[in-house]
């Protein structure tokens, strides 16, 4: 295995994610010409991942600016703050620029606490795209619910449960998916249950579900409602892999393999939650695990590209 084994896996995944991001943007914004995603777009994760990968795909910035102008008010500043620390430094750094766009072009003062005014050089190269958000597509379900119910936990919980194809989800799963604080999620979920928006089930632990047929008339979800995939977990793993690959460039294959196992231990959810069965860490000894890791990442990349959008 070459010494850049982790870098190769990181590159494979980044490429797949750039394709997936294009599909997601196509699902919620009219400008991109690609095939739109059908699965539910996690908007804060989409913004953070686009900010991270903008270095590799500079056209993302124009979309981000356009979105800042037309969709900023439908993004959750609190959730963005919760998610951002788990993304690569570039995403966190550029979030300040994006926040400035949201505050200035989007006229949304909530973003001022995160904003940083761009330099003149940056401002000069800006070319405007008129905002053209799409809220009626399947992938825009979460945004649509936020527009209807307000930006906050309840809309996100409802989107997650509706994206679970009628399945029940525990509080832990809901918290993990939505990225809000557990107590706040618990209160929101209980209120949704009290209001009859979701069904509380007396399982142990307690679980909740949203009945698609109950919402179909309103949201027109159809026979194949959009699925919630765990994009945030996937983006976090990809970012961590990218960082590890940079750090490990000159390490021995054995140490790279050890680092790869660390990544798998810390980000198992990126695979499991997105229905990719990663092989056990003990499936190959020492540096031979790099091959297993590369194959598992390649499978995840393929899934992101083909089945998760």
């Amino acid at each position: 295995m070459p010494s850049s084994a982790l870098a190769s896996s990181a590159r494979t995944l980044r490429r797949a994610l750039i394709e997936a991001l294009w599909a997601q943007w196509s699902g919620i914004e009219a400008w991109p010409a690609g095939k739109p995603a059908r699965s539910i777009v996690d908007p804060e994760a989409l913004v953070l991942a686009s900010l991270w990968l903008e270095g590799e795909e500079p056209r993302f910035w124009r979309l981000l600016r356009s979105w800042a102008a037309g969709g900023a008010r439908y993004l959750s500043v609190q959730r963005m703050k919760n998610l951002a620390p788990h993304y690569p430094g570039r995403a966190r750094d550029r979030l300040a620029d994006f926040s400035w766009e949201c505050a200035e072009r989007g006229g949304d003062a909530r973003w001022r606490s995160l904003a940083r005014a761009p330099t003149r050089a940056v401002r000069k190269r800006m070319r405007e795209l008129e905002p053209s958000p799409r809220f009626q597509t399947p992938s825009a379900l979460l945004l649509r619910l936020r527009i209807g119910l307000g930006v906050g936990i309840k809309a996100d919980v409802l989107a997650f449960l509706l994206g679970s194809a009628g399945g029940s989800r525990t509080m832990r799963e809901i918290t993990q998916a939505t990225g809000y604080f557990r107590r706040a999620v618990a209160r929101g979920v209980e209120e949704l249950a009290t209001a009859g928006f979701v069904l509380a089930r007396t399982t142990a632990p307690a679980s909740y579900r949203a009945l698609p047929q109950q919402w179909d008339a309103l949201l027109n979800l159809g026979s194949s409602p959009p699925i919630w995939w765990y994009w945030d977990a996937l983006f976090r793993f990809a970012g961590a892999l990218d960082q590890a690959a940079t750090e490990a460039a000159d390490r021995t294959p054995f140490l790279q393999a050890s680092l790869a196992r660390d990544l798998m231990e810390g980000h198992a959810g990126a695979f499991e939650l997105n229905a990719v069965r990663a092989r056990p860490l003990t499936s190959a000894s020492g540096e031979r695990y790099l091959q297993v890791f590369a194959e598992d990442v390649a499978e995840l990349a393929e899934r992101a590209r083909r089945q998760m959008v």
Partner: protein
Amino acid sequence: MKDTLQPAEIRSTLSRLGELLAQHGEQAAIVVVGGAALNLLGVVSRATVDVDVIALGVERADGPPQSVTVPDALPPVLEDAGRRLSRDLGLGPGWLNTTVTSGGRLILPPGFAARVTWTRHGGLWLGPPRAPSLGARVARGGPLGTHPGCRGGFLQTA
């Protein structure tokens, strides 16, 4: 999960322990005895179930340790690296242990530290104790019990 370490694996496993320590900017010095030590010294070539750490070298900035202490347990840095190696190489959870020190109550014979030959493997100083008379003892088919590389020959407090 491996039950034993083959002779060829003992040195490479300890070398990797050193790699891991160095990678994390850590350093440690261990004196090993028992089957692992005898393999390292080339006295025997047989599988061993674990690596017995009888002493820790007192680290110095400019060279190998010159004195040793008897630990009651592995220091956290070695415990962590050992655990990681257990995961990475499929070794048993106690593959590196200080059982032989009886919880730190073991008393080493006088001059023990001087008989340790240290070699460096990344962040690990590795020192099996040597015994000049061992070759003759083995050649005669004599017992190894009194060799410092074996577990016998040490005093224990009550």
